[in-house]
């Protein structure tokens, strides 16, 4: 079990910068998700941690020790590949025992630990069969078990659930959480699925185009995104983010939306937008669950009018698509009081709204 410090790490492939000056501190025993769209650099980051790629600039330290001098085979890293990389020419048993055999562990000890792990992963009945005969789900277990059996300092998982069918994926997600607790190991988990990240990780590092966008606990990231990208990427359904120009008329500040509608800004969000005088165009963000209908609840809440275009059932709730001029807002219809075609007022609570600089994506103001 180790802590990991990723310090100003940059990775270039020729002219292309895959990872740009990323720093992440991971505490011992933490479960960290590297989250981002595909091609964002999260896999490269993980490969650098594993030692599969060299670091161009910066350093990666385990417990303060620089990794670059340690050979891959001596790093003691558990790595679960996206397609598991099971040794298909060996038996399940030999797969599990491989990491121990190469370390010349005593034969009886190997046997004990292999059987314990097989038991833990509930693949004991498969032990003597060729690994190539396993189902995808069993391969997943075997891959995790094979890495876990050597008691690695850290555990890296590369999109481990993406090949699984939906039912087993949910099961494995829970299972992984349990395992992480059981092993108490530092785990780094690469995924493009924000729900997986939110539900599993202690901390999430969101990466886009090689840059670290935000690093923090899931709730912090959810509630307090540092920039427009994070705000847009995290949360389901997505946050409403509408872009426009700031215009001041007779002491009133409006965000003139590109679709023709306008949002009269007030309260905290107005303060946020004005916190930087240089900003002239911005993004207004609010999560669908924060929008409400009916009576206005706070003095600074912003009133809008829109037409219900679509109503969509999401679990027990209904999601309303509200058209304001050319712009669409999503909101939860909590009380099932709307009908398609209704022209209704709705309210954007100023405190729950977020302001972003449209040019840089930076969050304006704060919580």
């Amino acid at each position, binding site marked *: 079990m180790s802590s990991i410090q990723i310090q100003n790490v940059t990775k270039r492939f020729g002219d292309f910068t895959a990872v740009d000056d990323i720093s992440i501190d991971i505490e011992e025993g933490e479960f960290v998700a590297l989250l981002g769209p595909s091609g964002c650099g999260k896999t490269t980051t993980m490969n650098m941690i594993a030692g599969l790629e060299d670091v161009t600039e910066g350093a990666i330290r385990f417990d303060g020790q620089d990794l670059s001098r340690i050979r891959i085979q001596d790093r003691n890293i558990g790595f679960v590949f996206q397609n598991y990389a*099971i040794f298909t020419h060996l038996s399940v048993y030999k797969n599990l025992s*491989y990491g121990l055999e*190469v370390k010349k562990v005593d034969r009886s000890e190997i046997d004990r630990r292999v059987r314990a792990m097989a038991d833990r992963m509930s693949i004991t009945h498969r032990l003597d069969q060729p690994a190539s005969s396993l189902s995808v789900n069993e391969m997943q277990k075997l891959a995790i078990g094979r890495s876990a059996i050597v008691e690695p300092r850290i555990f890296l998982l590369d999109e481990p659930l993406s090949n699984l069918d939906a039912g087993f994926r949910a099961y494995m997600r829970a299972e992984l959480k349990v395992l992480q607790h059981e092993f108490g190991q530092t785990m780094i988990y690469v995924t493009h699925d924000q729900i997986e990240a939110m539900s599993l990780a202690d901390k999430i590092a969101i990466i886009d185009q090689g840059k670290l966008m935000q690093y923090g606990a899931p709730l912090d990231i959810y509630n307090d995104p540092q920039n427009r990208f994070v705000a847009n990427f995290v949360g389901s359904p997505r946050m409403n983010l509408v872009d426009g120009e700031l215009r001041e008329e007779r002491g009133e500040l409006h965000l003139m939306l590109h679709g023709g509608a306008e949002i009269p800004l007030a309260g905290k969000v107005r303060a946020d937008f004005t916190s930087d005088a240089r900003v002239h165009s911005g993004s207004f963000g609010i999560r669908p669950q924060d929008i409400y209908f009916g009576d206005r609840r706070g003095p600074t809440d912003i009133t809008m009018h829109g037409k219900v275009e679509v109503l969509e059932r999401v679990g027990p709730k209904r999601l309303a698509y509200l058209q304001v001029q050319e712009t669409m807002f999503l909101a939860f219809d909590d009380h099932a009081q709307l009908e398609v075609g209704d022209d209704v007022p709705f309210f954007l609570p100023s405190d729950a709204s977020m302001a972003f600089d449209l040019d840089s994506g930076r969050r304006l103001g704060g919580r």
Partner: protein
Amino acid sequence: MTDQTAPEISNNHANAGYWTRVARDGQKMGFWFVLPTLLLLVFIVVFPLLMQLYLSFTWWTPLEGIPWYQAWEVFNWGENYWYMVTDPRFWGALWRTVLIMIVAVPAQFFLGMALAYLFIDQFPGRKLFYSIMLTPMMIVPAVVGLMFFLLFQGTGPINDHLGLPPEFSCLTDVNRAMISVIIADIWQWTPLMFLILLAGMLGVPSDQLLAARLLGGSNWQNFFKIILPRMKTVIIIALVLRAVECFKIFDLVFIMTNGGPGVQTETISVFLYNQTFGELEWAYVATMGLSILIALSILAMKGLSYMAKK
């Protein structure tokens, strides 16, 4: 080939209907497609084998003064086979062929394997080096014989490097001639091993290799436990190919040493050649040829069925 096209042209008008029907009928067209190859096979396999079997039971040689088909006049009830079994020169040549095989093929295999291992990842200049490595096997074997003939001359560069006098000749020495031939064979055919083994090695999924390394396996351990077992088929193919080709080794030996000094480098092919045109024992050559064919066929069948099982 001519068998197929000739009737097509000549019958084109008179019998147009037939060829149109053939073009419309897969089985019929397939028959015409296979026919030339079948004819060639019959021509080169069936007929010669029967002739060889026939001749091997006679005394017939070109010295006999009768055409081969009258060879029954000198029928000898298989005495050739007995002669072969008790002919020390035949067994000597066979042994030398096997000797080249058991020295050169493993050497080529290990060198090829080591080279393939060097070329398993990308590195700057790999493509160029790869092309260079392949060159020897593309060179006409007779030219390779000539090249090594030049190299191993007493006044050639090898002796000069090693500081040996020109009198220390490699090709005409009782022991060194064989070594020279084997070196030339290794030089020419290691690239083939390299090529095939590299293809096999690159066929091992790279993530499995990575997984093995991450599990703490050293390069050696991973090589023997992951790469090697996965290359089994490839290795068998490469070894069988080379071993079979070794039986044919002729050009190299013939040009480098002509089987000499004495019979020190006389391989089975050179021996057959010498028997054919030197001693002119054609029936005896037919006997040996047939025996070798049968032995190789049995081995090949065994090998193929073994591979099919795998």
